[in-house]
């Protein structure tokens, strides 16, 4: 269970972690925590799954990579089989079942646009299903902030 100090850490550190030789000491000072306690608490938040990880959030597209959101309509009796094919691809980062005729939505991230097209083709070939590619054409959001 997270306590008030953990919540303070999650709320204050969703960005802006210092780029300096002793960043935990510097960030801790702002939260009135010493370096060792901040490190221990972050380690516990990660190991208990309260946070996914602690570090840089890399943006694949800005590094020459390619990312897309794709969807398919899996027949209900084949859903688990299709999910296994899609999720087995290393390039599939997230895969969600959703309540729509297009019932499986997944994010594919690759090093190159050509590889992205190839992964979608592999999924089409291995599932025998149409895969609808929905790459972002424009992005309209500020910054993700979740209050713990």
């Amino acid at each position, binding site marked *: 269970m997270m306590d008030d100090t953990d919540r303070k850490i999650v709320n204050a550190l969703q960005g802006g972690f210092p780029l300096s030789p*002793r960043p935990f000491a510097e960030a801790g000072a702002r939260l009135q925590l010493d370096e060792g306690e901040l490190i221990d608490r972050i380690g516990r938040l990660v190991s208990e799954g309260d946070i996914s990880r602690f570090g840089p959030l*890399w943006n694949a597209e*800005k590094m020459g990579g390619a990312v897309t959101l794709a969807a398919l309509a899996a027949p209900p009796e084949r859903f688990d089989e299709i*999910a296994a094919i899609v999720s087995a691809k290393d390039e599939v*980062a997230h895969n969600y079942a959703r309540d*729509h005729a297009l019932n499986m939505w*997944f994010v594919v991230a690759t090093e190159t646009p050509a590889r992205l097209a190839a992964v979608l083709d592999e999924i089409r070939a291995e599932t025998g299903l149409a895969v609808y590619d929905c*790459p972002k054409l*424009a992005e309209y959001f500020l910054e993700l902030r979740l209050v713990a």
Partner: protein
Amino acid sequence: MSALDAIDRRIIAATQGGLPLEPTPYRAIAETVGTTEDDVLARLESHLASGAIRRIGVIPNHYALGYQANGMSVWDVDDEAVDEIGRRVGALDFVTHCYRRPRHPPIWRYNLFAMVHDKSRDGVLAKIDEIARIIGRSAFAHDVLFSTRVLKKTGLRIGGV
């Protein structure tokens, strides 16, 4: 953005699962990738400035924080109005991602996606009503797709690793 070199790729590989949780994490990364701490810091500064790193810190787990409900709201918006509408919807504090994406008629008519997180399904629906009021008559139709199961969730794996 300039191409990544071998050191950048090794830094990505060494950090995409998280920073080392020790007093001098950047020095630890420098030792792992074979460069100096100053070089690691300079490269991370530059990637942050270019947007190759969105931010550095806590990457939350929505589910653990109690945001169990996530609804992908999707809207069929007049192409002439979609950028203006997208900016207004994307500025709402409960919308975590907002994108224009291509339609695939007839199965998929929607061109604006706004991801809404909340602690309950009813909370998500109330927020989507708020978006509907903002969009008004520029949307011809909308829908919300709740996630019924997480089938896979890993961090993006990039950078030649």
